[in-house]
């Protein structure tokens, strides 16, 4: 093993030796610089590997051969080694990224870069306070020098401001060091630990040390100077500044605070949280990509500072959590800065240029997911463990603030990602070249590798090692293939997985699995219509299906949550593919993440920090005091997914604007995940009361209100897919109501809805999508009379709406029959009224759907339309056949589930004999119903044929029109505002109360961001004053508490 001191030595040595060489041979010089950085990285990596595998022990290096405090000592443990690798690698890649500037400015700049990397590395290794000071000074000078590399004029100002502030920091630090020496008699960090920190001077010393280091972390609001650097410096350097310097500074804080004692931790927590939340709020309003990244960096550093503040409760997991967050931040932020060097424009929208390069989009997605802490990246694992620890220690407010911050952060990051995918891409907006791309992809690879490493941690569930997740990743690699081949593979993968696992599931899980996995395969048949490569679709879809598959497999809280997040992420990318879906996908991911955080908190509350915690263990807390809170949190999360009224506003847009084959996936399948969660939760927790209110009753009310309002809103839609989306809200309301009844038949009803809603909603979305493919519009009133041109689509819509409205003989009726039997012995009477109202209202929008599209007057441009593409029809016809079969033989799916639910509730209200079903109250004989109806229908039809077989077939204008004739089909088709009389009576229900509420919330946060942003005036003196005021304020608050 080479000594790690060589990292410093090589850095410094090369920097000096550069000065001795001929300045003209720039390429050689640059090569030497790179080599030096490469060697430094290699050493760091070697140490990391050795330490991680246990091949080496933590190295203590004493310079000058004497023990501290008489000499400087350096330490390289695993965290140090990992950070060193990060710093040196970032340095190497940054050098590559800045190659043009470095070559232009020659050896001096390269030397400064090397010094910076060396100094940052030294900062990590050293255990001596004064040495620390020296390195910080070195960093300050080197940074100021490198800032000037940029050709941006603002960089000069930024560099100057930076120098001013660093001097303040240095002074504070120096005074702190002097005080410390005075107090402890040593400058070695390890000695401070031993010495008592009892008297006032010591805590003041500690305060000065810490505050200096904290200001180095650019906390909000004392950070105006740093943001100017991010905005104006070369992005290659900004990456280094954010990833390497920031991480090292954090490490130093950690180093210093560890001996100082736990009483300092709340200070760190407070500053960290303030910085995290506030920076993210301000970032919401940023237009400039690099400044936004700057705010995000500040926020992330604040987050990690807050995590350092939690080191007392994190215990063994501390390194895992903090490390995960630091590495996620560093890799992602560095990657984004380097990418920004390729994007020509500085506006966020300019990133749309990335869209032309699929791998770049992948890189962007990777970095965004890493920053937000989504699976499978280290931040995700870290976030989970952090939440567990915080809840176990009773620090819910801290967790809440962190999650709030993450949510805001995801808001602007995903908005930005949405811009990149959806906005107009400028010509030549991307200055891509092999080197920059290489840097970016190296970073991406690093990110994924870290994800794998973190998943492989002790006692962890490695997401990337599961078969479904691997499949999803494989589909990223398969991207160059033709879409049809990929589609075939995807279907095979889904069916294969189902065949593999189906045997192990209980009947209820089996139904969910059948809907989610082979059900997904059936919908994928429709994707055969798409030609070309269809980049991005299959990885996203397979990620979603992987999430669903893992969800069903999950046995522990973590597995469940991880699967949930994977599913959310995959579906977000899927939804974002829609043509107009940018804002809707954003609101989808935000609501989903909000819901997911509720689930996270709920799980953490339930597990009490015990890892891993089996899902079945949830029932152990059912009797505990916190059980109702767990119930509320989990339910909130699941209700967000099922889009219960109040949390529904993401759904209509997301489902309506998605692509033809995506809408049925997200509507027919994805919504069921929420129901699945509710089932799991209720099975374990049972009824819970909060302040005397039975929470299942609340759920029932929410379900009933969703069922009713969803239906009413659907009635007023002009857009066919939006109508179906609102209808989903209503249908999920029914299912929710059934689940919340907490009796056997209620659950059976919900299961029936799981099957039925999947079938008919997928069918209707596909049919409407097929029509959209031909007419290029979703506005129903622009269509009309398509029945003769698209008979198959018509049949599937017809069967779909009969089934959905519950009219016998199709399967929807079964749902209604079970519903009536279920409510017979329920105590809930009032919400029933809403459910009863919802039924006929549903009839309204369904009729409108079929009438305005297929009946009425055919429009001019549609006269020559063809039937929808055959591959869109195939799944529809499968669904039609299934619906009819299921109507006659409901037992084929329900009987087993019925038995299973019976085993949960310990009763068996339904008796199945032959094809007939009897309950305590009534009976249902589907075969007889079908037979009678078919017989009567055929008989009446025969009479009509006998009389009217010779009827003259007429055309669309051959109608009696009060003795006039129709003018144009557009003016004859009664379609727009179809239920105008209904609107007159019930239109008040359309008032967008919920939308206004959420609009107010986002508006408020944005307003806060706008207000806070004015704080940054751009004036160096003001910034210096900020820093001083910040120090004074913190002093007053902190010393008041500590001393």
């Amino acid at each position: 093993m080479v000594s790690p001191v060589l990292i410093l030595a090589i850095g410094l040595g090369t920097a000096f030796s550069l000065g001795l060489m001929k300045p003209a041979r720039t390429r050689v010089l640059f090569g030497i610089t790179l080599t030096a950085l490469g060697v430094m990285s290699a050493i760091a990596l070697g140490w990391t590997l050795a330490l991680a595998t246990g091949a080496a022990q933590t190295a203590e290096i004493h310079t000058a051969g004497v023990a501290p405090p008489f000499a400087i000592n350096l330490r390289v443990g695993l965290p140090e080694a990992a950070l060193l690798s990060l710093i040196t690698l970032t340095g190497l890649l940054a050098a590559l990224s800045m190659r043009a500037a470095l070559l232009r400015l020659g050896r001096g700049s390269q030397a400064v870069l090397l010094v910076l990397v060396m100094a940052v590395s030294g900062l990590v290794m050293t255990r001596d306070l004064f040495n620390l000071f020296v390195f910080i000074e070195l960093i300050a000078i080197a940074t100021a020098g490198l800032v000037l590399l940029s050709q941006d004029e603002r960089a000069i100002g930024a560099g100057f401001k930076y120098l001013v502030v660093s001097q303040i920091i240095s002074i504070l630090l120096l005074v702190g060091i002097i005080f410390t020496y005075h107090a402890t008699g040593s400058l070695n960090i390890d000695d401070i630990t031993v010495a008592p920190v009892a008297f006032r001077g010591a805590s003041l010393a500690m305060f000065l040390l810490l505050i200096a280091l904290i200001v180095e972390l650019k906390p909000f609001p004392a950070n105006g100077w740093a943001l100017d650097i991010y905005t104006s410096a070369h992005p290659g350097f900004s990456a280094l500044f954010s990833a390497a310097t920031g991480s090292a500074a954090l490490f130093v804080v950690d180093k210093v605070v560890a001996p100082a004692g736990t009483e300092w931790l709340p200070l760190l927590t407070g500053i960290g949280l303030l910085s995290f939340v506030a920076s993210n709020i301000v970032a919401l309003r940023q237009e400039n990509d690099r400044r936004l990244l700057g705010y995000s960096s500040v926020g992330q550093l604040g987050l990690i500072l807050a995590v350092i503040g939690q080191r007392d409760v994190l215990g063994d997991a501390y390194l895992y959590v903090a490390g995960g967050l630091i590495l996620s931040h560093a890799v992602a932020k560095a990657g984004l800065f380097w990418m920004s060097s390729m994007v020509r424009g500085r506006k966020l929208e300019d990133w749309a240029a990335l869209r032309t390069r699929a791998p770049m989009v992948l890189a962007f997605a990777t970095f965004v997911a890493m920053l937000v802490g989504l699976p499978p990246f280290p931040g995700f694992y870290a976030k989970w463990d952090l939440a567990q620890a915080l809840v176990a220690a009773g620090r819910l407010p801290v967790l809440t603030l962190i999650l709030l911050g993450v949510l805001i952060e995801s808001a602007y990051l995903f908005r930005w990602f949405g811009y990149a995918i959806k906005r107009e891409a400028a010509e030549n907006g991307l200055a891509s070249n092999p080197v920059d791309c290489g840097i970016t992809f190296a970073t991406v690879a690093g990110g994924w590798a870290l994800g794998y490493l973190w998943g492989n941690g002790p006692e962890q569930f490695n997401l990337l090692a599961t078969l479904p997740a691997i499949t999803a990743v494989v589909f990223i690699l398969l991207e160059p293939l033709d879409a049809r081949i990929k589609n075939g593979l995807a279907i095979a993968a889904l069916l294969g997985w189902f065949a593999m696992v189906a045997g192990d599931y209980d009947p209820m899980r089996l139904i969910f699995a059948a809907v989610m996995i082979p059900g997904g395969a059936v919908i994928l048949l429709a994707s055969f219509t798409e030609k070309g490569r269809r980049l991005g679709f299959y990885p996203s879809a397979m990620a979603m299906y992987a999430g669903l598959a893992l969800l069903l497999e999950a046995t522990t809280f973590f597995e469940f949550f991880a699967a949930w997040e994977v599913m959310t992420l995959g579906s977000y990318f899927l939804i974002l593919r829609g043509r107009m879906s940018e804002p809707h996908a954003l609101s989808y991911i935000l609501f989903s993440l909000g819901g997911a955080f509720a689930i996270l908190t709920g799980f953490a509350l339930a597990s009490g920090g015990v890892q891993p915690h089996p899902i079945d263990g949830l029932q152990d807390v059912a009797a505990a005091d916190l059980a109702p809170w767990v119930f509320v949190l989990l339910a909130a999360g699941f209700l967000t997914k099922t889009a219960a009224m109040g949390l529904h506003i993401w759904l209509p847009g997301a489902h309506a604007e998605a692509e033809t084959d995506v809408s049925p996936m997200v509507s027919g399948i994805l919504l069921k995940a929420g129901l699945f969660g509710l089932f799991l939760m209720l099975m374990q927790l049972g009824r819970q009361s909060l302040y005397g209110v039975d929470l299942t009753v609340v759920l029932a009310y929410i379900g009933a209100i969703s069922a009713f309002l969803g239906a009413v809103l659907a009635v007023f839609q002009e857009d066919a897919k939006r109508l179906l989306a609102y209808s989903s809200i209503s249908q999920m309301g029914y299912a929710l109501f059934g689940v919340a009844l907490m009796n056997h038949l209620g659950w059976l009803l919900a299961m029936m809805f799981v099957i039925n809603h999947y079938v008919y909603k997928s069918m209707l979305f596909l049919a409407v999508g097929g029509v959209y493919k031909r007419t290029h519009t979703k506005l129903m009133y622009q269509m009309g009379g398509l029945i003769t041109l698209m008979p198959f689509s018509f049949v599937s819509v017809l069967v779909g709406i009969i089934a959905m409205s519950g009219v016998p003989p199709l399967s929807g009726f079964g749902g209604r029959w079970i519903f009536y039997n279920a409510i017979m012995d329920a105590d809930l009477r009032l919400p029933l009224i809403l459910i009863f109202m919802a039924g006929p209202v549903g009839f309204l929008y369904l009729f409108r759907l079929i009438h305005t599209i297929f009946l009425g007057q055919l429009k001019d441009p549609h006269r020559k339309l063809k039937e929808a593409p055959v591959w869109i029809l195939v799944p529809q016809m499968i669904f039609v056949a299934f619906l009819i079969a299921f109507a006659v033989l409901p037992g084929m799916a329900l009987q087993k589930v019925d038995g299973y639910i019976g085993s949960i509730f310990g009763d068996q209200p339904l008796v199945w004999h032959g094809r007939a079903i009897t309950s305590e109250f009534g009976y249902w004989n589907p075969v007889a119903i079908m037979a009678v109806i078919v017989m009567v229908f055929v008989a009446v039809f025969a009479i009509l044929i006998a009389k009217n077989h010779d009827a003259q077939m007429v055309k669309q204008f051959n109608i009696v029109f009060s003795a006039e004739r129709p003018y144009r089909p557009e003016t004859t088709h009664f379609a727009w505002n179809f239920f105008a009389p209904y609107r007159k009576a019930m239109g008040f229900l359309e008032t967008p109360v919920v939308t206004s509420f959420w609009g107010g919330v986002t508006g408020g946060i944005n307003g806060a961001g706008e207000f806070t942003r004015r704080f940054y005036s751009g004036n160096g003196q003001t910034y210096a004053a900020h820093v001083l005021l910040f120090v004074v304020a913190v002093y007053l608050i902190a010393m008041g508490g500590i001393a």
Partner: protein
Amino acid sequence: MKDVDDKFLKNIETEFPLREELRPRRVTTPDGQEIEIEPLKDYFCEAAPKVHPKAYIPIVEDFYNWARANSLWILGFGTGCGAIEMRPLMTPRFDAYRYGIQWRPTPRQANLLMISGYLSVKTLKRAIRAYEQMQGPKYVVGLGSCTINGGMYWDSYNTIKRLDQYLPVDLYIAGCMPRPEALLAGFMELKKLIKAGKGEGANKYAENFATYKANQKSVIKDWDMPDYNW
């Protein structure tokens, strides 16, 4: 014909242009194709009316005719001042309902068209349309002298003078206007005709379709509909 001034007629514009909404037009389909729309062909059925034979068994036809006679559904369409004379038929004093006579608001369900008085050319077009949209067997009754020979509108520039030139009239009820009693008497006559199997106006119209059309088109200059309004 002494009044006729041969030099008078000055057809300024003999050919009336087809109305804009009926002219062939080109539209772009959603796929970007250009297609030709011919409204009269694409939106209206072009088939000619058919002659419908009587039921094969005479007694069945007699039974049907009896039913038709006792279930006269009048199209609620008042063409002229005579419409006012129909309203009393619904009142207690006359009550036509007792004879199986009812008013229907849609031609599809009506089988008796009452031309109640003078018929301007503009209304004639609507009357023809309404008649053709009724389903056979169907009957036409002309009310008042205006439908017989023009009556007081004998020299009007805008009213037809002889209804049977344009529609197959089964029965005229004379008078200016005929009173409700006369109308009832006329209905009784019509019933007799129908029961006797003589109410074959629809078939007559189909048989002499060309003649009727020629007559109609000679007065309706802007023929803006298909030849037969199904």
